[in-house]
């Protein structure tokens, strides 16, 4: 018995007849959707176009691919049914065992091996597929049609496995073959951050050639034009197979358009959240756009994509998205309890079923988009004009570009005369220097120590130490930089005292990765206008003091003291990449802290 129970449908139900003709039986995966027969029709359309039509890849090899993907996903239901179908087409038991174990099948042609490996990779981890994988297919002799079929087949396999995890249908057959245990992690390995963007750009899947298909000649395009306002590349990119496009649109019509079980908005939210979890920027953009058309504000849409828990959704809808994201991305962990959770919140079996099918459809579309290399729909307008923001750009700082200041040479310094006198023991000159730079010293100290009182104490140490060592200053850097390094040493001494809890350099284990921006509400155009200067300063200072010290330090020196990244690295004895990482994370953390004061939502409340 499947998770949602099974109702009976007449055996002469059209989609059932089609399956019986094609496979000799009606899989329980379809019977488990009998609460909403239109969903069965949708799957029948997709299976008909992808699995049974075409011909660039043989029917037998298609079954082999579906079975391999089921084996990779350890999907017991699909393994049993696909194993049966594959063997009924004449594949010997030994070969099926090899597929189940994930080992290479003997006797496959080069093209068959290549397409099998490609489909497995695409289904397992779509974002990791790159131009080399496509090149391997081409080298093995696959033409456009065959590449298209391979991509569509992977998408269908993902659709079926997602559904089987969600529905838990009764197996159609006893396991002829026990699913082999894999060494592969169930979790999908996402592309590693270590790839540079250069490499990623070169490795990106090239768009599959798509012949021009006129909306005048192809009715489905006219419908798309009406619903989207234009024909997105997602559909244009499939023009090689108008029959498949047609089937897809008929499936979409049955799954997404009805508004009587889940609402259109709920379904678009599912598509958005699961696409985001699948790292599919293209589909995220598309569903954000569609949600806007359905009346959702852009901010709310974005918030769902980034983190739906922080959005304005009801508790029930949040749970619905949790459910869909888990099913869509961690199908192997999905279980009956997940269904029960939604039922407790009042969702009907029909609603849960529809949510699962929408999730499956989403994974189908995500896989297709990635595999076909569908390109963004909009040319980037020049979103940011360089001069519009007051950012001390690298090009503006003295240490970058043509006028670089070589640090080993004696530098021009307005303080030079005063310094020379101070070095000769002139206290008045020293006092003058200290007054000129007290602000810089103080900021360095606050940054390092994290509170104004300690900074004031350390300031005294710094000035005394500077006077003591001024004779050793050789003018190889600006006097101000030298003062900063003295201040830094004084602060470090304080931090090394046993009572001090903060450390600047320990705990580097969290350096990489896990910080993700959460706030996506847009900020006001002119955030400054809602607060007085003093209020702004207080907001900024509180935000900065709340940062962990190692980030605070870098943000203070770069953004308040406006040193260049190289100078910050030098001052702190850190590598430039470390400074960059900390600076970005520090700025992003600060952004989260400042957001509540400056998002459009607070407009009118602020004084």
């Amino acid at each position: 018995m499947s998770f949602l129970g099974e109702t009976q449908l007449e055996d002469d139900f059209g989609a059932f007849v089609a399956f019986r003709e094609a496979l000799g039986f009606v899989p329980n995966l379809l019977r488990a959707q009998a609460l909403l027969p239109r969903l069965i029709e949708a799957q029948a359309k997709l299976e008909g176009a992808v699995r049974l039509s075409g011909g660039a890849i043989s029917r037998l090899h298609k079954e082999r691919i579906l079975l391999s993907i089921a084996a990779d996903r350890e999907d017991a239901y699909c393994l049993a049914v696909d194993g049966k179908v594959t063997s009924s087409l004449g594949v010997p038991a030994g070969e099926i065992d090899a597929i189940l174990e994930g080992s290479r099948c003997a006797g496959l042609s080069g093209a068959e091996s290549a397409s099998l490996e490609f489909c497995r990779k695409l289904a397992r981890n779509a974002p990791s597929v790159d131009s080399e994988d496509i090149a391997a297919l081409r080298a093995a002799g696959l033409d456009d049609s065959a590449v298209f079929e391979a991509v569509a087949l992977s998408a269908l396999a993902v659709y079926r496995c997602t559904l089987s995890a969600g529905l838990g249908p009764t197996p159609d057959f006893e396991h002829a073959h026990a699913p082999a245990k894999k060494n592969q992690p169930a979790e999908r390995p996402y592309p590693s951050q270590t790839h540079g963007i250069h490499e990623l750009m070169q490795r990106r899947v090239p768009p599959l050639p798509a012949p021009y298909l006129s909306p005048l000649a192809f009715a489905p395009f006219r419908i798309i034009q009406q619903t989207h306002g234009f024909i997105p590349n997602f559909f244009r990119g499939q023009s090689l197979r108008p029959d498949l496009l047609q089937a897809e649109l008929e499936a979409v019509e049955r799954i997404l358009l009805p508004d009587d079980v889940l609402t259109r908005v709920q379904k678009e939210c599912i598509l958005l959240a699961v696409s985001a979890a699948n790292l599919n920027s293209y589909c995220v953009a598309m569903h954000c756009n569609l949600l806007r058309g359905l009346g959702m504000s852009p901010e709310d849409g974005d918030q769902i994509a980034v983190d739906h828990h922080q959005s304005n959704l009801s508790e029930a809808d949040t749970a619905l998205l949790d459910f869909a994201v888990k099913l869509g991305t961690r199908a192997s962990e999905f279980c009956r309890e997940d269904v029960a959770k939604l039922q407790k919140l009042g969702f009907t079996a029909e609603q849960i079923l529809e949510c699962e099918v929408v999730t499956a459809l989403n994974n189908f579309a995500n896989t297709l988009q990635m595999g076909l290399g569908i390109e963004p729909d909009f040319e980037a307008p020049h979103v940011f004009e360089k001069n519009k923001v007051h950012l001390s750009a690298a090009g503006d700082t003295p240490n970058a570009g043509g006028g670089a200041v070589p640090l080993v040479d004696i530098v021009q310094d307005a303080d030079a005369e005063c310094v020379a006198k101070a070095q000769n023991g002139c206290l008045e000159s020293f006092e003058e220097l200290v007054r000129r730079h007290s602000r810089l010293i103080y900021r360095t100290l606050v940054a390092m120590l994290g509170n104004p009182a300690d900074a004031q104490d350390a300031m005294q140490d710094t000035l005394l130490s500077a006077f003591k060592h001024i004779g050793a200053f050789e003018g190889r850097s600006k006097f101000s930089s030298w003062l900063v390094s003295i201040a830094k040493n004084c602060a470090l001494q304080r931090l090394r005292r046993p009572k001090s809890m903060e450390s600047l350099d320990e705990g580097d284990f969290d350096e990489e990765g896990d910080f993700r921006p959460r706030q996506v509400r847009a900020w006001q155009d002119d955030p400054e206008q809602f607060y007085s200067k003093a209020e702004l300063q207080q907001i900024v200072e509180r935000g900065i003091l709340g940062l962990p010290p190692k980030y605070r330090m870098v943000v203070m020196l770069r953004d308040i003291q406006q040193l260049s990244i190289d100078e910050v690295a030098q001052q702190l004895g850190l590598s430039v990449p470390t400074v960059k990482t900390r600076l970005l994370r520090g700025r992003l953390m600060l952004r989260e802290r400042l957001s509540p004061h400056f998002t459009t939502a607070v407009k009118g409340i602020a004084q």
Partner: protein
Amino acid sequence: MITCEEFLAEFGDYLENQVSPEIRKELELHVSQCRACQVLCDSSRKTVRLVTESCSFELPENVSDAIIDRVMEKLRKDPS
């Protein structure tokens, strides 16, 4: 199109205007398609602007004077 993760990996250099024109184009293409990253980008730039223009962590003049006076007094007594 690059993913949000990939965008984020380059975002630091982007904020610093330290990316090559072709990467810049790629990032801006992403930003034009992805409102979440657009908001991230816009608000991060505003964050930097607010911080740089906030005159934060100014030591009040009287406090600063008091500290400097105290130090100078010490040095005048014992300049070694």
